[in-house]
């Protein structure tokens, strides 16, 4: 299996979503685009683990998924206007 073209397509997807982070009107749209980037990065890390035959990338992917979930929840609470 060749995994390099898949990584290239995923990086193109991340670039398109990152353009929406910069030009998006308002904070909620930027948060949605950033969450999309997080999901794509998790999938890319799992593919990179298979490409380089290194298990440590999958561990990084699990921790990245959980920490980006915490980031999403805190930024959502900030947009909502709650006190911390």
């Amino acid at each position, binding site marked *: 299996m060749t995994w390099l073209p898949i990584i290239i397509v995923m990086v193109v997807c991340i670039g398109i979503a990152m353009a929406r982070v910069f030009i998006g009107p308002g904070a909620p749209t930027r948060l949605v685009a950033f969450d999309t980037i997080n999901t794509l990065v998790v999938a890319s890390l*799992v593919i990179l683990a298979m490409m380089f035959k290194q298990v440590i990338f999958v561990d990084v992917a699990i921790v990245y998924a959980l920490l980006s979930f915490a980031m*999403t929840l805190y930024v959502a609470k900030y947009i909502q206007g709650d006190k911390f």
Partner: protein
Amino acid sequence: MDTLNIVSYVFIGIGLFFNLVGVIGLHRLPDMYTKLHAATKCTTFGSIFLIIAVIVQAAGAWALEGAYSSQSVMCIRAVLALVALMVTNATGAHAMARAAHRSGEKPARVVVDDLKEKEND
């Protein structure tokens, strides 16, 4: 191993197609809620299929090399990453939509907002 490669390529094709559709929908749709609809659901579905392709490859190598293969760790941890992705994406999308509605973000061309009358907290 040849059949496993074909299965993995089919899964990768589905996954990349849905990721591209989700990211294009992030640019084409008018307001935040439809962008959330396109991006979160399509990207989660595509990423699930990409990780399943990796799981199929790792499980095939594990079955081929025996019980103490180095691919066994890869297979089990990829399943854990898949579970973490599925749980966190759905919950995060719900939290984002709720926060956007409470912050006063309106959908495009909206006339009636029924949810606003129900929230009395």
